């Protein structure tokens, strides 16, 4: 039998997508008597809600109901970690996006018109905009009802990881390199705006048609909010217009189910782009201070890092983003003395949430930039400095996270990336264009961490020549459906075409956890593999495949990922990692500050590659997203009010912006626990791109950009301010040594 793993099998959902037959939630045909919903949102960033007057709205012909928090019969609070977010505002509003009411009407037209007529009476409160002021004694308290953790009620989460005596060692170290870094909000900009359809049946059970990342979690949150037993809720997944973490949180799910239940009719809601941008969270802005202490020959002795992140008005997954950032703030380096302190705080800014990288983008940028600055200070090659500080097998990377014998994967990505990059010299400087090359690397955890029971369940029905695999893993565009089928095929010794995957229905497919944290291949893949192994053994016991009954036999298995420690700094925080190293070539126009990315070489070790073509797509997509984050994407907020309201203003890369030369180098260090040795590819690809680009800018101009995005104006200003102490020939040496 031909192998199925390691093969570029064509995607199962491909034919529908290229023919335009894939249905996204906004494409679903309307059931008869379908009503339409529109949300009324807070007009201000912070205020006390005094009342909602729906009289004018109800007078609009075709309007059926206007729902407010009084209609929320369960708990009016939801949230992925902390239930601090109202389904519909009750006492106060904390961001400009807070839903205050939902209008349900016979036409979408009437719903939107009526929504504009709902009067919301709010007494404005002072708006907290600066996370650095969030813990000041006179700061507005965003959640006065919440039990404070830490010394100030505006702290969502804080975390500290300490090892050794970093203060003591840093004081005595001959070399210290420090810096302050800042990153801003970023919009996910997935192409398909949110939409959904909620349908009640005669028994009052509710079905929600939507595109999401964790169907069962959506339903659990909805069940609590509605005061509805979970068994009466069903979610059916459609095709999804991208996610990148932006569909992890509840968007319209609870409101749609609420509306459908209240009016006893199907209810549809479609967000336009403006509502989509307003209605879902953003990447966390972060301010970070890093200090590296080293010996004269480049041994890293101590690392200090302070991280402050902006959660916006609600907690969402900020605590977990912070955890990720803090436990990976020291990257892949073996540093004996470490102190990392992180804090994420409430403000009245837009809610921040999961976004590809989940906190590790920000610390990777700061850490890798600091390492590159140290290299420059020591006049060492950035590669040599990194290699010198990689851990030996068994030595811990992030505090108390022992690295197994697979540690050499990290070294491999660095060596292979630089080797490939060196094969092509930089173009010559010409006119105002200066060329530079930069190196950076990154590590990203795979899976949910700190003691979370990361698990998935799969069920396999094996027939004589075919198999049906049921696993509720949400497809978010990455090709999970195909990859899981390949794993099943490989395990069962069947061709991939003989495998059918059922994943879209919570009533049919067992729960497989969230499609996030780069972990579906790992966790769901293992569940599928185990279930296939079991059912194959059962078939053997029955006398072979030919002896199977016509209906086939069924096996069901739950895979639990290796246990991690719930105490940061005391045992493994994560159960698997992927690594990547990136070399970026840029051209900088030193008269305007414009940066062009000419070439990206990225070596990625995500374990065994299940599908090379899809793997390549993930790397290329992550690279361009990283490029956008580094150079051009922006999201402006003033006094808690987003100024960026259109897709054009978000400024994501077009085909012309995207680096045209992206070379993917695959390093496959098998994971001892991953299915066929696979790890996770979804996020790590983006991480090293940003610091590689800023390092390349430095190589070209001598200027460090410590603030993202590195817009032309910032680059130009940095060039003007750069440390003129680096002499010309030393700069040249650095430029050409970047790959060594």
């Amino acid at each position, binding site marked *: 039998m031909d192998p199925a793993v390691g093969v570029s099998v064509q995607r199962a959902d491909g034919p529908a997508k290229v023919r335009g037959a894939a249905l996204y939630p906004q494409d679903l045909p309307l059931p008869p008597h379908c009503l339409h919903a529109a949300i009324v949102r807070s007009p201000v960033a912070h205020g006390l809600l005094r009342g909602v007057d729906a009289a004018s709205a109800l007078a609009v012909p075709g309007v059926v109901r206007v729902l407010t928090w009084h209609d929320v019969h369960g708990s009016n609070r939801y949230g992925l970690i902390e239930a601090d977010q109202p389904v519909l505002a009750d006492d106060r509003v904390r961001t400009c996006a807070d839903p205050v009411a939902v209008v349900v009407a016979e036409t979408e037209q009437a719903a939107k018109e009526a929504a504009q007529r709902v009067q919301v009476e709010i007494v404005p409160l002072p708006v907290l905009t600066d996370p650095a002021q969030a813990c000041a004694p006179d700061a507005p308290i965003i959640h006065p009802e919440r039990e404070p953790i830490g010394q100030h009620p505006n702290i969502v989460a804080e975390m500290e990881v300490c090892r050794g005596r970093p203060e003591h060692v840093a004081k005595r170290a001959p070399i210290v390199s420090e810096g302050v870094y800042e990153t801003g909000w970023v919009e996910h900009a997935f192409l398909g705006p949110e939409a959904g359809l909620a349908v009640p049946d005669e028994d009052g059970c509710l079905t929600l048609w939507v595109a999401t990342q964790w169907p069962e979690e959506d339903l659990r949150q909805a069940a609590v909010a509605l005061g509805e037993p979970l068994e009466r809720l069903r979610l059916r997944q459609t095709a999804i217009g991208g996610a990148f973490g932006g569909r992890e949180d509840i968007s319209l799910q609870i409101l749609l189910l609420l509306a459908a239940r209240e009016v006893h009719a199907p209810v549809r809601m479609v967000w336009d782009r403006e509502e989509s941008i307003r209605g879902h969270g953003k990447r966390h802005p972060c301010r970070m201070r890093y200090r590296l202490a080293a010996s004269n020959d480049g041994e890293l002795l101590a690392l200090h890092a302070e991280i402050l992140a902006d959660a916006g008005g609600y907690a969402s997954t900020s605590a977990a983003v912070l955890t990720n950032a803090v436990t990976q703030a020291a990257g892949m380096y073996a540093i004996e003395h470490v102190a990392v302190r992180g804090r994420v705080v409430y403000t009245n800014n837009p809610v921040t949430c999961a976004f590809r990288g989940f906190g590790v983008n920000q610390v990777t940028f700061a850490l890798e930039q600091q390492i590159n600055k140290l290299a420059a200070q020591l006049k060492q090659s950035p590669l040599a400095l990194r290699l010198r500080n990689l851990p030996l097998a068994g030595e811990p990377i992030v505090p108390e996270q022992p690295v197994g014998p697979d540690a050499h994967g990290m070294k491999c990505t660095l060596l292979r990336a630089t080797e490939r990059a060196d094969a092509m010299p930089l173009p010559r400087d010409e006119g105002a264009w200066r060329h530079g090359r930069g190196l950076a690397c990154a590590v990203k955890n795979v899976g949910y961490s700190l003691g979370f029971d990361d698990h998935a369940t799969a069920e396999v029905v094996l027939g004589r020549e075919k198999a049906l695999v049921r696993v509720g893993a949400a497809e978010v565009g990455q090709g999970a459906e195909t990859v899981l089928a390949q794993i099943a095929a490989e395990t069962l010794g069947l061709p991939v075409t003989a495998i059918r995957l059922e994943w879209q229905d919570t009533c049919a497919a067992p729960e497989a956890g969230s499609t996030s944290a780069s972990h579906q291949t790992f966790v769901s893949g293992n569940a599928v593999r185990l279930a296939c192994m079991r059912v194959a053994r059962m078939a053997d016991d029955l006398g072979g495949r030919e002896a199977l009954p016509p209906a086939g036999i069924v096996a069901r298995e739950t895979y639990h990922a290796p246990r991690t420690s719930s105490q940061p700094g005391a045992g493994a925080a994560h159960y698997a990692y992927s690594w990547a190293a990136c070399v970026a070539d840029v051209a900088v126009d030193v008269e*305007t500050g414009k940066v062009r990315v000419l070439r990206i070489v990225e070596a990625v070790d995500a374990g065994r590659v299940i599908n090379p073509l899809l793997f390549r797509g993930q790397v290329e997509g992550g690279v361009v997203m990283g490029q956008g984050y580094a150079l051009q994407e922006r999201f402006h907020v003033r006094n808690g009010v987003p*100024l960026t309201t259109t897709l054009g203003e978000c400024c994501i890369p*077009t085909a012309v912006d995207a680096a045209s030369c992206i070379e993917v180098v695959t390093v496959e260090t098998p994971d001892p626990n991953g299915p066929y040795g696979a790890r996770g590819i979804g996020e790590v690809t983006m991480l090293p791109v940003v610091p590689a680009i800023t390092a390349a800018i430095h190589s070209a101009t001598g200027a460090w950009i410590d603030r993202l995005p590195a817009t032309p104006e910032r680059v130009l200003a940095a060039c003007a301010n750069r440390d003129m102490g680096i002499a010309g020939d030393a700069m040249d040496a650095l430029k050409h040594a970047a790959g060594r």
Partner: protein
Amino acid sequence: MAASLPPFTYLAPASLGEALDALQAPGAVPFAGGTDLLVRLKRERREAAASPSTLVDIKCLTEAQGIVASDGGLRIGALVTAAQLAEDALVATQAAALAEAARATAAPALRRRATVGGNLCTPHPAGDVATALLALDAEVEVATPAGREYMPVESWLDRSTMVAPARLVLAVWIPPLSGSAFVKFGPREAFCRALVAVAVARTTQEVRVALGGVASRPVRARHAEKALAYGATLAEALARDCSPPSDEQASSHYRLLLAETLTRRCLASLDAAMRNR
């Protein structure tokens, strides 16, 4: 389904006379490519703001079509699209800045609809085509119920109401010139509005410089033109020609700096092109 546009009456007049009559009604606006108008109407609908009630589709009007040579210059119909400008041989040789501006506008599908007239009628700091037309010292041919009017594009852009009742831009006239060039700088490499754009043109008598992105409309940089003629400091002169805003996109200082750099580059590009002829 909620329509994204507000309701309106749609008229498709067969003649210029009919069009001008239709445009006299309150709330009537000309509709050509719609790349600005329809976007504006959609935003107004979302914000529940007042909208025009009649769209007068002028795409049939022959008076506003075509690119013809005339007296050493060009007459370019207001309905000519950016895509057409980018491909036209006459425009390439006699109004290169306009061809370059058209090529740099928006994206391919939008260029097939965006018209010269539209770019002149939508107030914006940095319309690419408008900026080029300013440097080219184009004249705007306007149809009114009382007859044709001709005015410099600078006057047209200065008017406080861009779309006055019952006036229709029919064409722009490009006078003869020795050469022209256009340069655009935006927040990304394609498909964006300019942060700063520069168009330059040379005749035997003078050099003209137009700037986009430094004011509420594209402007002629007359102090800069003098500085170039007399060898004075360009930066100082540009600072007199405009006071660009500082906002989230860029500072005033950076916009001025770009204006200076791009002006030099645009001139260098033009001079190189003229040498190569």
